[in-house]
């Protein structure tokens, strides 16, 4: 298990009722952590339509996460 921080934006923040939280997780990748949090908070958007960043850099869902990482979860974007 590792300790990480999750940060939520827009619809994810509204749904989770917070903009970040400290977690202890068995997830090994950003995608595994998303699946865990989607179940906890009821995030309904599939990964293919969302984006993720690890420590303020865009990442893939397969990106490994490590102790102390901050993982940012972005719901489907809608700029313009």
């Amino acid at each position, binding site marked *: 298990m590792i300790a990480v921080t999750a940060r939520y*934006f827009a619809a994810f923040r509204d749904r989770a009722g917070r903009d970040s939280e400290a977690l202890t997780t068995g997830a090994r990748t950003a995608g595994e952590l998303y699946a865990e949090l989607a179940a906890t908070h009821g995030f*309904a958007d599939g990964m293919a339509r969302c984006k993720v*960043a690890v420590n303020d850099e865009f990442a893939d869902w397969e990106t490994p996460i490590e102790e102390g990482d901050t993982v940012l979860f972005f719901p489907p974007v809608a700029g313009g």
Partner: protein
Amino acid sequence: MSFRISDQPLDPERLKRALGRDSAGACVCFEGWVRDRNEGASVRALEYEAHAALAVKEGEKILAEAREKFGLDAAAAEHRSGRLEIGDCAVWVGVSAAHRDAAFAAARFIIDELKRRLPIWKKEYYGDGHSGWINCLTGKSGAEAEPPGLPRSLNRQL
């Protein structure tokens, strides 16, 4: 820096002046405005939320790709954050190039990539008092009705 996120009204005339080059024979500017309807619902106002640091980084990357791909003289863009009213300019894109074909194509490329890649989210406030995040299933009433555990829509795409 030629890409910015701004919480203040955009000024297209000022932005356009930065595109001038002696070698440029064409300038194309695009403005995205807030309109009063979306998918049949009457819209009162909008709110944009951005992850500014990552949006600027990605925006600069898109402009650099466009300069390279279309051989532009200059390219710049700005996107609003915060609350906007009907008619406000939400996004501005401007390019200059030797000829019009490259300028039109580059402006189109930039606005399409900005919409697809920037970490920016739009919340619409409707005439009937409701509001909602655009493009998101999360938070929609349909998602609320799904059984606990992994939502169907997520399962499908995993």
